[in-house]
C-alpha cells in the first residue's frame, strides 16, 4: 500500500526569532517566525511545528504570542514544543492555537505526564519529542535540552514506553544529523518505526529532496524540514514532488 507522507516545516524559536543552528548549537537568527509560517502555509505545508529551543534551559515559555499570531491566519494543524512541563502549560498552548504539543524533557522527568495529556486532550494531541544520539551500532540514547543532556535511556525502549502511556505520535530528531544536511539517520528511523505503530515524524538532517522518500522508505509518516526551507534552498513543492515521484502518497494542493 502507498503510505501517505506529510511534509512539516519545523520552526525553531528563540525569543521572538526563528533561528537555526548546526548540531543545535551556534544559533543563527533566520527572521520573523510569522512571515515564514505564512509562506509555508501558502506553499502547502501539511502541518507546522514550532519548538521553543531555550524554554527547557531557562525555564520559561514565551511561545504563546507567536502561536496566537500564526493560528490566526493558518488553517493547518500546529504542533508546539519546548518547555512544556505541565497540564497547565499544555492548556496555555492549546488556548493559543496549538492542535498538538510535543513533550520531551518533562516526559522524561515524569512519564505520567504523557498519560495525563493523552487522557485530557486525547492521544492525537500528545506528540512525544525524542532527541536521539547514536552511541553504538543500532543503539541510540535519549537526550534532552537540545542534545546537551544525556538521560541514560535507550531510545527504542523509551518510545515503546511512551506510546503505551498514550503518546499518539513521535517526533524523532537525530542529534547527530541535525543541521548537517547529510540526510536522516535511516537506521534510527527504521528502529523506531518497527518498535511502535503510531506515526513517526523524521527530523534532523534533511538536505536533498531525495532524503524525503528515503525517510518514507524507512517507515515514517512525516518529515520535518527546517533550514532547507528557511534559506530557500528548496520549496515544499519540490520536496513533495520528489516524494510523490518515488511512489508515496502526498498532498500536492496548496491553499487557494
Amino acid at each position, binding site marked *: *500500500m502507498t*503510505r501517505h507522507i506529510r511534509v512539516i516545516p519545523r520552526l525553531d524559536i528563540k525569543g521572538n526569532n526563528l533561528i537555526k543552528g548546526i548540531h543545535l548549537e551556534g544559533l543563527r537568527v533566520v527572521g520573523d517566525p510569522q512571515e515564514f509560517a505564512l509562506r509555508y*502555509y501558502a506553499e502547502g505545508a501539511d502541518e507546522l511545528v514550532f519548538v521553543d529551543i531555550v524554554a527547557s534551559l531557562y525555564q520559561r515559555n514565551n511561545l504563546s504570542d507567536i502561536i496566537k499570531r500564526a493560528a490566526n491566519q493558518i488553517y493547518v494543524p500546529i504542533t508546539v514544543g519546548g518547555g512544556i512541563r505541565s497540564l497547565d502549560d499544555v492548556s496555555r498552548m492549546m488556548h493559543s492555537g496549538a492542535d498538538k504539543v510535543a513533550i520531551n524533557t518533562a516526559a522524561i522527568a515524569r512519564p505520567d505526564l504523557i498519560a495525563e495529556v493523552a487522557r485530557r*486532550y486525547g492521544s*492525537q494531541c500528545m506528540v512525544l519529542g525524542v532527541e536521539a544520539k547514536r552511541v553504538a551500532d543500532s543503539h541510540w540514547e535519549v537526550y534532552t535540552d537540545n542534545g546537551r543532556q544525556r538521560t541514560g535511556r535507550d531510545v527504542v525502549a523509551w518510545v515503546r514506553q511512551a506510546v503505551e502511556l498514550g503518546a499518539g505520535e513521535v517526533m524523532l530528531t537525530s542529534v547527530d544529523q541535525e543541521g548537517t544536511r547529510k540526510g536522516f539517520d535511516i537506521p534510527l528511523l527504521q528502529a523506531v518505526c518497527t518498535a511502535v505503530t503510531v506515526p513517526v515524524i523524521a527530523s534532523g538532517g534533511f538536505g536533498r529532496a531525495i532524503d524525503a522518500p528515503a525517510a518514507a522508505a524507512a517507515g515514517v*509518516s512525516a518529515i520535518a524540514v527546517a533550514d532547507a526551507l528557511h534559506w530557500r534552498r528548496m520549496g515544499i513543492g519540490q520536496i513533495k514532488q520528489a516524494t510523490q515521484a518515488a511512489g508515496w502518497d502526498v498532498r500536492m494542493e496548496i491553499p487557494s
Partner: protein
Amino acid sequence: MSPSVVVLDYGVGNLLNMVRALEHCGAAVRVAERGGASLANASRLVLPGVGAFGDGMAELRARGLDELVLRHAQTGRPFLGICVGMQMLFDVSEEMGEHPGLGLLAGRVKAVPAVGADGRAHRIPHIGWKALEPRRDWQGTLLSDTQPGERVYFVHSYAPVPDHEEVRLADTDYDGVNICAAVMRGNLYGCQFHPERSASPGLHMLRRFLAA
C-alpha cells in the same frame, strides 16, 4: 448580517481554532458552555470534539448540552459535529469500553482497523491529508463546493460505522479500508476530518454550512 453559529463547549476540547475558522468564514460565533432556553432558537450548532468519547459524552450531559443538541436536531436547523462531535451523533462508541452516544444516527463507533486490506499493520492514529470520495451526490450538501478526491485533514483512531447507507456522504480510504468521513441526514451533518484545519477545502465546507 453575519450568519450566527453557536459552538458547544463541553470543556474537553480546544475550541479556539474552530471559532477562528468560522469567524474567518464570516460567522458571528457564540460559545455555549451550558444548555438553556436562550439557545433554543440557535440558528446553527457546531459540536467540535477531541479527546475521549466517554468523557466527552459525560461532560455533554452534565452541562445539559445533550438535550440542546437533541432538540436542535428536531427543528431541522443546521448542525455540524466534528470528529468526536460527529461520533457522538451515533448510538454507541467502543472507545475504552462501551459508551452510549446521542443516538441521532444509527450505528456504532469502532476502532479504525489496525491492518490494511492486505493484512499488514498500518499506523494508528490515522493521521494525514486524505481524499474525500462521494458516497452520494454532493449537490446541495455541505460538500457541494468540494471536488471528489480533494484532501482534508484526519487525525483519529475511531470512526463511525453507520447502519444505513443513505446517511453516508463521503468516505476516505486507509490502505484499502473504507473510513466513513462525512454523514448527513437533512441538515444534520457530521465529519470525521477537521474542516477547521483543512485549509481551503475545509473552509469551503464551513462556508456552505454558514449558508445552510
